[in-house]
């Protein structure tokens, strides 16, 4: 993946997003299949992919509906999984300088993948790359959903294809370039640890998420893991 070059533009973003868009298309297929099987019909899942545009949240809502859950429960579980977009939105905010409509469009196209591709390191984000990558993911997600809804019977059970393992693998591939750092040690609570701050933040984030999983509703562990970034507060005394 391209490292921090300040002049990446729409084109670079569109190129960088292609491999991820392919994976997202597959994920969209499986969402379309599952949503239809969950009794959401053919149109609602597609509208949800166009508007909510967040994979894990849509899967959660579909599984709650399939289990006969109430509308409030399904919507709430989707929103809890998407709660991470509040801090993620805050991180890109300084780099979005256009009109309110332009900011709304960039915000809508901000998903995990486009956010990572648009990252330029040390807390900087590139709005042109964010727009291009977000559009690529959005198109793949919506087309995938349509395909899943239409051809669901042919595709069968997506878990059989191992698609559920594709996403942690994708996030791992996105994580590794973010672990590079100019600092070799992390200062934490007066101690000096022999690993760079991004590595410590990642390990701490994973530990928080796993520790909370059995005790909190889905989505909460991911948001809580974000607190691991606070170790950065002590970095520059």
């Amino acid at each position, binding site marked *: *993946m391209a490292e921090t070059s300040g002049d990446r533009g729409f084109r670079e973003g569109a190129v960088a997003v292609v*491999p991820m868009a392919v994976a997202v298309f*597959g994920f969209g297929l499986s969402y379309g299949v599952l949503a239809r099987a969950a009794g959401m019909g053919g149109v609602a899942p597609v509208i949800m992919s166009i*508007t*909510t545009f*967040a994979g894990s*949240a849509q899967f959660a*809502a579909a599984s709650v*509906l399939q289990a006969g859950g*109430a*509308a409030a429960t*399904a*919507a709430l579980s*989707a*929103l809890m999984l998407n709660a991470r977009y*509040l801090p*993620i*939105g805050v*991180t*890109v*905010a*300084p780099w*979005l300088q256009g009109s*309110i409509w332009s900011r*709304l469009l960039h*915000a809508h196209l901000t998903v995990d993948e486009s*956010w990572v591709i648009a990252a330029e390191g040390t*807390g900087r984000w590139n709005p042109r790359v964010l727009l291009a990558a977000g559009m690529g993911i959005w198109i793949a997600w919506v087309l995938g959903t349509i395909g899943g809804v239409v051809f669901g019977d042919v595709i069968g059970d997506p878990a*059989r294809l*191992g698609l*559920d*393992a*594709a*996403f*942690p*693998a*994708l*996030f791992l591939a*996105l994580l590794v370039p*973010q672990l590079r750092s100019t600092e070799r040690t992390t200062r934490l609570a007066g101690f000096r640890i022999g690993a760079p*701050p*991004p*590595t410590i*933040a*990642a390990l*701490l*984030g*994973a530990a928080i*998420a*796993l520790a909370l*999983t*059995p005790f909190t*509703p*889905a989505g909460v562990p*991911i948001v809580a893991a*974000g607190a691991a970034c*606070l170790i*950065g*507060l002590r970095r*520059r005394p």
Partner: protein
Amino acid sequence: MSTVWIVVIVSGVGTLALKAAGPVLLGGKQFPDRLTGVIGLLGPALLAALVAIGTFADGQRLVLDGRVLGVGAAAAAIRFRAPVLVVVIVAAAVTATARVIAG
């Protein structure tokens, strides 16, 4: 209105509100340096959490299943600098194979 459509509308409006709160309220303003360091670490923290949950969580339970092998194989592929698409395909293929073997 049917349950399904209520979910679609509430989740769509709510998600856009979550995503847009930062850009609409704080758009174009720079944060102080100290905060930029913190925000730069949010990526690694959230992505690692997504990897951990996606690999080990089944609802609220933590399990070891075919995904562990798939993500492990993906880690090896990343180590050898494989392109992202190859990494993802390796993960899915290994997981699917493990499931076939395990029956």
